[in-house]
């Protein structure tokens, strides 16, 4: 095999020899000096490490919960409620007998200094609280009965207090034990077909606080499949969804600045002009001056411009960050840094808008040649129109 050539040793299963050879070769292929050589060396090193027969390793580790016990436990599950409760009582009485051995670790003498001594005393104090050798099998049997019992009735399962035994359980601090318990509970919860979906989700929500399922979503997905996780935990980041519908926005834009297209901007302006026209109509109705002389097109245009200059900057500087038309089309106005405009900045922007609209032909020509989707008034007033 070529990996042995790279490492310059004979094929071996001795982990230590492989590591030593790797360390030796690494001195000539340092990762920052010879990245390619290093990549090859590392790949071969991993290959060499994995090539050894794995019997030793497997039998040594993973001694926490043997699979056979779990299988027999599952078979035992079909029992009457009476017997479960009886057994629970029995197990709980057992739990009162101490199965704890205190740790007596001799600490090395090299640490000096008052503060550190103090710390070490503290450590000993805290370490007394945990056991060195918990009986995991018994512990698991006990825990499983409790879990099954709580999951049996929907009232107890959706009550947060009935799960409090999880927090008190000493063994659940162990990483592997907790991971196992977590996937067991998850599996049980999925298979609870009798419960309606919203109840299952409510229970999952309670348990998520303890097992932190949303954080390890990807692990659960590989174990149970994407669909099932989605079914139980719902969509990711529900809080983000709420934000979209919220009226008040943050002062800064979050996420990438995506420029809005010309057509979208045009559509938003048309909506605004429409709104102003309607507003004018009702204004005229209210004042009762439905006189044709004052409602001629020229007057209306001038009034429209005035309304525009008065209200639009207010809208743009508000937390809406744009006129109603822009809000409806899901775009907003910010400065180059993604920050909300100030009222002066917004007024300046709209003055620029009116000026550039007056030179409409010129604006059009400039924008035909530059394709960065920025209009002339945005260019002058140093602001941008982006997607919300």
């Amino acid at each position, binding site marked *: 095999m070529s990996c042995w050539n790279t490492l310059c040793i004979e094929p071996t299963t001795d982990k*230590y020899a492989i*590591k*030593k050879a*790797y*360390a*030796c070769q*690494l*001195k000539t292929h*340092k*990762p*920052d000096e010879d*990245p390619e050589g*290093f*990549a090859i060396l*590392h790949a071969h090193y991993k290959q060499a490490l994995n090539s050894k027969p794995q019997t030793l390793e497997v039998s040594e*580790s*993973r001694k926490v919960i043997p699979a056979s016990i779990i299988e027999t436990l599952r078979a035992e599950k079909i029992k009457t409620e009476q017997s479960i409760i009886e057994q629970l009582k029995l197990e709980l009485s057992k739990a009162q007998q101490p199965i704890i051995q205190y*740790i007596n*670790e001799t600490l*090395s003498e090299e*640490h000096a200094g008052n503060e*550190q001594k*103090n*710390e070490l005393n*503290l*450590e*000993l104090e*805290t*370490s007394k*609280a*945990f*056991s060195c050798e918990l009986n995991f099998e018994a512990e698991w049997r006990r825990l499983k009965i409790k879990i099954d019992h709580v999951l049996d009735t929907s009232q107890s399962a959706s009550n947060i207090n009935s799960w409090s035994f999880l*927090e008190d359980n*000493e063994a659940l*601090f*162990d*990483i*592997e034990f*907790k*991971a196992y318990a977590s996937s067991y509970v998850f599996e049980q919860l999925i298979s609870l077909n009798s419960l309606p979906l919203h109840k299952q989700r409510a229970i999952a929500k309670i348990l998520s*606080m*303890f097992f*932190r399922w949303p*954080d*390890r*979503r*990807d*692990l659960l*997905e590989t174990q149970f499949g*994407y669909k099932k996780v989605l079914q139980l935990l719902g969509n*990711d980041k529900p809080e983000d969804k709420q934000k979209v519908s919220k009226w008040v926005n943050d002062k*800064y*834009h*979050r*996420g*990438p*600045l995506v420029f809005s297209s010309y057509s979208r901007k045009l559509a938003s302006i048309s909506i605004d002009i429409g709104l102003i026209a309607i507003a004018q109509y009702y204004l005229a109705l209210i004042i009762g001056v439905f006189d044709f002389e004052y409602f001629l097109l020229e007057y209306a245009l001038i009034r429209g411009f005035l309304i525009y200059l008065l209200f639009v900057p207010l809208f743009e500087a508000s937390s809406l960050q744009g006129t109603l038309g822009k809000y409806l089309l899901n775009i907003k106005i910010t400065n180059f*840094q*993604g*920050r909300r405009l100030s009222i002066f900045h917004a007024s300046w922007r709209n003055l620029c808008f009116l000026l550039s609209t007056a030179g409409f032909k010129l604006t059009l020509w400039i924008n035909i040649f530059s394709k960065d989707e920025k209009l002339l008034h945005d260019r002058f007033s140093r602001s941008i129109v982006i997607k919300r």
Partner: protein
Amino acid sequence: MRIIGIDLGTTNSACSFWSDGKPELIPNRLHKLLTPSIVGVDDNGEILVGEAAKHRLVSHPSHTTSAFKRYMGATGYQTQLGKREFSSVELSSIVLRSLKEDAESYLGERITQAVISVPAYFNDTQRKATKLAGELAGLKVERLINEPTAAAMVYGLHHVSNGAQFLILDMGGGTFDVSLVEYFSGVLEVHASSGDNFLGGEDFLNILVQKYLDDHSIAKKKLSAAERHQIIEALNKAKHQLTFDKSVTVKIIHKKQDKPWTIDRNTFEQLAKPLLYRIQTPIERTLNDADISPSDIDEVVLVGGATRMPMFRSLISKMFRRVPSGNINPDLVVAMGVAIQAGLKEKNSDLDDIVLTDVCPYTLGVEVINQEDNKGKQGGLFMPIIERNSIIPSSIVKSLCTSSDNQTKLNISIYQGESRLVKNNIFLGELDVNIPKAPEGKETIDVRYSYDMNGLLEVDVSVNSTNQTYQKTIFNHSGLLSEKELTAYKTKLSRLKFHPRENEVYRVLIARAEKLYESTLGRKRTDIGNILNQFEQVLESQDLKRIHTTSKQFECILDELEQQGMFT
């Protein structure tokens, strides 16, 4: 050329270098090893850094800022200091500059190169921002090193026996990192790394503050900035005290509080439970990725100030069934490790046979079309290119093809994260590629991701039929700086006035007195005011000898007053 190592922390920073076979820490102008990462502007518009600024948090809250590392790389996040606005990058560069000056006066030579540490779980944008901060401070950043890796180097080099696996748990002021490291015959290999960028001592402090406010029914919004900082400071001291005592009593620090407030360790632990659960997740993930069981780990090492908390230690002891080791000062160990890396970069002969390999802590990939998604609810799928915990430097190519007939443009969106859907991952940047017209699936492009030792990503795209190539070094818009902008940044910073170094000691004393003045009442307050006035008069006299003696006396008085301070 001398290269210095800098540990740029959320609450404290430190500076170090490699000297004669061992890492050495550089004391700052006040002869302390830790410099608080706090920046302030004083009444004359001069910039204050460190201890002096820290004391001014209470007396001048609107002119001082702390914990800005939390917003590193955030788009458009600006802090208002007096009249000017600063970004996190600028504030960090001010701290770095101050550390650099300390190093220069200590070593007596000009320093232009540095190695800076970052949390392992910092993403690309945050790393770029840190690098930029270094450059603005006039330091060429030779390497960004992960904080747990730096700590592992210190522990690894102390270890004599061959072949040891360490689990490094690094909880500082604002971030929590986990790294699994193996050390054998001079090779320090990081196997897996994970973390939480928003979990640190500050979060535990916030819980305590919230509890205090709830107990006295104070609305957080109604607090003035000065009151808030006063409460935070008192409770921070209380939090530290809880490490040694079972319960702590805080004196009256707010007008709504009518009697001393007592908090005991158990209550604090109950309140902090949600945070403790969050600690478990990254640890579990690391062990899972490295495919190792807790019993295979030789030593669990605690790094960072927040790991001093008894509840943290007891949790770790329970999780691993052993006492974690933290016999090197957890505040300084990262700085020492950074010095080793600086020594490596200098190609020091004492470090000749040390090699360090690191991993990329998160998955990097591109967006691909989700064909099952008919309703448009899920959005694009995430295709991993560099898997998390693959060894770096790493360079991986994947092919992509067109999805419709006669497609002329292909958009490559670069994402980072673990979720199956891109919308739940972090967007890093994008790149448009022009391709010739062809039927669906005919045209292919190669996307190459190169991840270097600093944790920075580069993307190369080549179109197979035309041999056109495109390249992108990932920048978010905030990090995207042209030469011109960089010089603009630099001139902005060079225009800032810094407080003269030699007066810094007196500045700190004044700031301390001002803080005491704010937090006391009645006769004591007027006394402090009087002493402060006297001291300022002496300072104006410019009589060096007299200043020296009065400052000594002044310090003694302040020490005494502070002793009587917070706790009963």
